[in-house]
């Protein structure tokens, strides 16, 4: 069963088309990741799901939790907006109680304590928001989004700005939410997080859907066209090898994208001629690589070098 169904929704701001004829479906109990470059329409889409924004002319279908009502207020949804804000003068405990009550949740006392403990904020419970660091405030706001135990949690870039320890704490919390039956949608710029956590990945670029599906299905679309190699030897330039379309240098490793007709054995032979091959791996492209391929058109000089190689 799909907890969110959106069909053919368009949203423009003045001249700018933020979201263009978008359709998506989020199955119940999944973790659904939104990726896309800055300004591509992620937040707009999330706000449409939240019904903070309404699509142009009210066209298209937005069905969230089986409802097609008009208002944004919904006790079954928890929301963490992209730009964070909490009442500065309020104490942490009071804020969490306020948001719990606002969602119609009455047995909040135990929940508040257990969430504060889990996020390592117990000692801060009676401090005011203005005393918190940015990362702590972000955790408080995350708690405020999930305190009432919503069925659907919408998080706009929840991991941005957190140190690795806190990011891990939050990641585990998100996974637990799913375990307890909630559906989670979040947007992120961190491809590794999206790869590891999301059941389904959705990429939007310039307002259009460009990817939608499981990581495997997305990678399959791009085929096994990537080689990871490590070659010891000086003056080695993989760009000169026929069939190599693009080289990404990671320092220790180099990632080569090869054209479809190229035989990997030929490439290996060429590499062995250049130096001692200590690593050779045929793999699918990473989400990062796919993202970059979509969001950044190939630079001209790469094409030029490929042509020289062919010559």
């Amino acid at each position, binding site marked *: 069963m799909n907890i969110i169904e959106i069909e053919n929704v368009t949203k423009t701001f003045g001249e700018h088309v933020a979201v263009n004829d978008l359709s998506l479906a989020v199955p119940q109990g999944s973790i659904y990741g939104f990726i896309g470059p800055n300004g591509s329409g992620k937040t707009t889409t999330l706000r449409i799901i939240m019904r903070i924004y309404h699509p142009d002319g009210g066209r298209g279908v937005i069905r969230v939790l089986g409802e097609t009502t008009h*208002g*944004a207020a919904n006790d079954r949804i928890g*929301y963490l*907006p*992209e730009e*964070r804000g909490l*009442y500065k003068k309020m104490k942490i405990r009071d804020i969490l109680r306020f948001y719990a009550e*606002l969602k*119609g949740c009455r047995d909040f006392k135990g929940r508040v304590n257990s969430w504060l403990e889990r996020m390592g904020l117990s000692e801060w419970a009676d401090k005011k928001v203005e005393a918190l660091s940015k990362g702590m405030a972000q955790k408080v706001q995350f708690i405020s989004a999930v305190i009432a135990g919503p069925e659907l949690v919408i998080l706009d870039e929840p991991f941005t700005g957190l140190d690795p320890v806190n990011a891990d704490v939050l990641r585990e919390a998100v996974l637990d939410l799913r375990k307890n039956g909630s559906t989670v949608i979040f947007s992120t710029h961190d491809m590794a997080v999206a790869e590891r956590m999301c059941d389904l990945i959705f990429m939007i670029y310039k307002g259009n859907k460009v990817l939608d599906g499981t990581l495997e299905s997305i990678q399959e679309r791009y085929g096994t066209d990537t080689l990871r190699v490590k070659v010891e030897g000086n003056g080695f330039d993989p760009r000169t090898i026929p069939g190599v379309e693009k080289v990404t240098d990671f320092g220790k490793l180099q990632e080569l994208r090869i054209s479809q007709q190229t035989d990997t054995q030929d490439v290996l032979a060429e590499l062995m001629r250049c130096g001692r091959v200590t690593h050779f791996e045929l793999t699918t492209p990473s989400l990062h690589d796919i993202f970059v391929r979509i969001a950044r058109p190939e630079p001209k000089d790469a094409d030029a070098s490929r042509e020289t190689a062919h010559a």
Partner: protein
Amino acid sequence: MRKMIVIAVREYQAAVRTKAFIVSLVLMPVMMGGSIVVQVLMRDKVDIKDKRVAVLDYTNQLYDSVATAANERNNKEIFEGGGELRKQVKPRFVLEKAEASSADAAETRLALSERVRKDEIMAFVIVGPDVLKPSADPALAAIDYHSNSPTYDDIQNWIAQPLHARIQQLRLQAANLDAGIVEAATRRIPVANLGLVSRDEAGNITKAEQTNKIANVFVPLGLMMLMFMVVMIGASPLVQSVLEEKTLRIAEVLLGSIPPFQLMMGKLLGMVGVSLTIATVYLAGTFYALWQADYGQFFPAHVVWWFAFFQALAVLMYGALFIAIGAAVSDQKEAQNLMTPVMILVVAPMFVWVNVVREPSASLSLALSLFPPATPMLMVMRQAIPPGIPIWQPLLGAALVILTTLLCVFAAGRIFRVGILMQGKGAKVSEMFRWVLRG
């Protein structure tokens, strides 16, 4: 409804729990009463150095009695307290008899002026030669007080009395009139300001009550000022509160939990609570103070409920406007610009209260108090002036204010709904009107 109360409670606590609120609650009467306290304290700090005054009496008949009066004053009137606590609180006025130093009056004045400049004397008084003759040349019948400190008028004010008394006495003697008879014949009779008489339950005709300035002017004025203050403290912070929620994107989260109209109503109700708290504190304080001072009868108990009712409406009416402003703008500066016209409406009754107090039943006063933005303040004021006004007037006023309040809340709701989520630049007034009309 439950959520609206959650919002209202938060809003109330956010306003009432701040130090600024408690400070302003205490400070407001302190500032008003403070000036009196400071004056009392400063009274003891006046300069009590002797003030020397030269008196040049061309009539030669006045100086002695004025000097006697000065001595009397110096011995009796400049002290406060008795026994050991007796201390001087005013300067002594030391008079000296000046002689004309020259036949030329102008030269004489110059010489005396020089003495003032040299600080030998504080001031000098010239009594013209003809002051005793009723129909004399005005230039010669003048009394002139010269000094180099024009704002210090204590000597001038004091000396007029003994001079006048002596002149009158001499004039009466010259006319062969008995001073006692003249005093009795010219004594002024004050006109008493009384209310109306009525028949009580026992059938007796009651005595008319002596009307009192406190009841007639200060109580109504105090009520109006209190209403003004409460609206200012209660309603205007809504601009900041909404602006905070808007700029910090708290609004987005709130709107995910509660519909915009309920959110707005919650905030308004919270502030009505705040304003009633302030009014209760001040009214109770005033009642206690009046009761302690045995002026309990002046407490306007009969209009207190009307006051509370109109005040709640005023906070709703103005609060809705302030919320609309907070939602429509994007920063403080824009908020200030838009607040100005609303502020003028709030302050407007201040400009006409004098007319209303003088003639509370005049049709102008009635018309002014039926203008909804001014109704809460002016209607309560008119009700507080004895003998009050017919009941249909506050009822009609209330109906009009309720109508206006509903209109304001409705319009603010529409502006709020759109504006609260708008980022970037603030809305133009024309845009706001479009939001209101189109919905």
